[in-house]
């Protein structure tokens, strides 16, 4: 007894649909007789039997799609008629002594080719610590001495992750903390390292300035009245724009102190200190704050706050602020003296809005007032320039419509 199987008719044929039987049980067939018709993606093809004998039994009913090799019918070979050597045997494995790869195997298995490990670069280069370009840049920006970093890359090469670990700043790795996506412990050690270094290296001087923000409050109330919540502005947007414009006019407060010299920044990227529920803090940058409209600034700020609190800030946003603003909001205290984020050279503190007796045109009356402070790097600027800078911010906030 021999199986008549669904034949493979083409390199890319996996299955066929039997659409017509030309024989029935009991019929005698010769080698080469057409016994059925199979429908394939290319059309109907007549299939022949290579096995002579009598049809014993039909195994597959019409219009059923079956994979190549499925038995379709049984053929009783005549007594004494030796079934053709190959047809009878089930599709034998290729009995090859060499590692057996059945011809039907779609892809010839290849021993895993180890990726070409870079040949050792000539000795001159190898002596120098191998540091990835990305790691070199991060270390330079955060003032990390590479010799204090142990490399985890090939042959001890220092990678970006190594410098990160050294900084104690966890940017990406999600932690078990309540707020998903943020490792508050790692963040705390990173803040500690940055603040300690700032205090060690940067000679801070501090200035304070009282600013009447009543004009801002009136302007905001009148503007927001006509807007749906999505587009309403907060006073924070006004202060950021004012600081941005002032920083543009006073470059000594907008840039980086690196390799023992001050590099003024071409752009004004204002870092906004954002408190993270549960104790974290980050100061991602609002890029080109001086050129954004208030509406644009507000929507970017809302996005930044929302992403920071969800732990999804881009590493580029973390490391390229040119000046930072820290604000404790309405329920904080009146004045806040910040510590500069290295390698920046200034930080603005915004106190809470308080109602104060204030002389306007000779008459005393209640006004909304905030205390704005400046902590600046005395290696780069001095009090006189700081005062002008702070005064400029105060003046800008008197005409909110021009911001």
């Amino acid at each position, binding site marked *: 007894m021999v199986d008549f199987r669904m034949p493979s008719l083409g390199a890319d044929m996996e299955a066929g649909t039997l659409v017509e039987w030309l024989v029935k049980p009991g019929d005698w067939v010769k080698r080469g007789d057409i016994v059925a018709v199979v429908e394939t993606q290319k059309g109907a093809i007549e299939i022949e039997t290579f096995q002579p004998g009598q049809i014993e039994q039909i195994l597959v009913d019409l219009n059923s799609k079956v994979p190549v090799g499925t038995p379709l019918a049984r053929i009783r070979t005549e007594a004494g008629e030796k079934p053709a050597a190959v047809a009878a045997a089930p599709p034998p494995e290729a009995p090859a002594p060499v590692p057996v790869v059945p011809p039907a195997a779609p892809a010839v298995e290849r021993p895993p080719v180890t990726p070409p490990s*870079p040949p050792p*670069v*000539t000795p001159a*280069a190898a002596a120098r610590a191998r540091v990835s370009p990305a790691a070199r840049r991060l270390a330079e920006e955060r003032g990390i001495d590479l010799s204090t970093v142990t490399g985890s890359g*090939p042959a001890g090469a220092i990678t970006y992750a190594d410098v990160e670990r050294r900084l104690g700043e966890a940017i990406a790795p999600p932690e078990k903390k309540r707020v998903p996506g943020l490792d508050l412990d790692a963040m705390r050690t990173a803040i500690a390292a940055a603040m300690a270094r700032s205090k060690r290296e940067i000679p801070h001087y501090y200035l304070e300035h009282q600013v009447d923000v009543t004009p801002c409050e009136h302007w905001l109330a009148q503007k927001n009245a006509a807007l749906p919540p999505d587009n309403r502005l907060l006073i924070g947007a006004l202060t950021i724009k004012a600081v941005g414009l002032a920083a543009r006019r006073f470059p000594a407060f907008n840039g980086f102190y690196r390799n023992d010299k001050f590099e003024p920044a071409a752009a004004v990227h204002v870092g906004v200190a954002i408190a993270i529920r549960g104790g974290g803090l980050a100061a991602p940058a609002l890029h080109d704050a001086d050129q954004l409209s208030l509406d644009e600034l507000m929507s970017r700020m809302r996005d930044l706050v929302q992403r920071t609190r969800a732990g999804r800030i881009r590493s580029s946003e973390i490391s390229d602020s040119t000046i930072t603003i820290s604000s404790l909001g309405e329920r904080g205290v009146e004045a806040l003296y910040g510590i500069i984020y290295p390698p920046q050279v200034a930080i603005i503190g915004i106190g809470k809005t308080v109602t104060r007796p204030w002389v306007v045109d000779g008459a005393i009356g209640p006004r909304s007032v905030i205390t704005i402070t400046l902590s600046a790097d005395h290696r780069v600027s001095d009090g006189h320039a700081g005062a002008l800078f702070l005064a400029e911010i105060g003046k800008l906030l008197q005409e909110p419509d021009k911001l």
Partner: protein
Amino acid sequence: MKQEPIRAEMVEMSYREAVRAALRDAIKRDERVFLMGEDVGRYGGCYAVSHGLFAEFGPERIRDTPLSESGFTGAGIGAAMAGMRPIVELMTVNFSLLALDQILNTAASVRHMSGNQFGVPLVIRMATGAGRQLAAQHSHSLEGWYAHIPGIKVLAPATLVDARGMLWTALQDPDPVLIFENVMLYNMTGKLAAVAGAVDIDKAAVRRPGRDISLITYGGSLWKTLEAATALAAEGIEAEVVDLRSLRPLDDATIMTSVAKTRHAVIIDEGWRSGSLAAEVGLRIVEQAFWALDAPIGRVCSEEVPIPYPRHLENAAIPQTPKIVAAAKAALGRA
């Protein structure tokens, strides 16, 4: 009596004449060698490279062909398989596209496909590159395409010594060798030793040592790159110029040694940027010398545009010295 040092006698010669000398030398030394191509005989060669050879060797060995690039390239392959050493001249790489099937599906494949029963010891020469205002269809630089094909070798002689010396070595090779001669080099003249002969065809050459940056190039762009190196030197930047000479196989060792030393690299390649030979060289540097890099690898390639006819646009389209200088400075962060 003090021996006068025997200075090799030098001859003033053009790149074209150097190639012609190579052809004459090969045809004289091996009767299996013959030149076949459009107008190589009676006309003396489209770029006058084979000028005079027809009179000297006759129509059998300086064989003019009909305009049948696939036909006579296939014939060259067949003749090589049956014992000859043909040199097929495909007038320019632009016309070689008609013979690409024979080059790829027969010449490059037959040894491997036949289980090493048949080889194709054939040399194919073709002019390449832009610069003569021949417009889009006659200005291609496609060496990078051919350097993609396993089974053949690809050469780019940029100097007189290589123009004179690569042919004989290529003819000894049991597998097909393609030689690309940049059209802008034919008229270049210089000194060549009268006894100059065969040179190697698988090593790159450092044409100008330097320490700050590796400028890696080949063929027609070599001389613009050397010019750029001179300009950079005036600004205190010592550029090392590496002439690939062989585009397949690439001489990785020489490339990586240079980059490991200078830690910066710019690749100059007249092909179009996407999928160019420069892309291949660049990635090999990333694979093999990543840890030595101090800046991203730069590339100066042709603009991705069909080469336009007007001179000022053609010049703007293909690599030029100022672009190479700018790319080198950018790589060094001194824009």
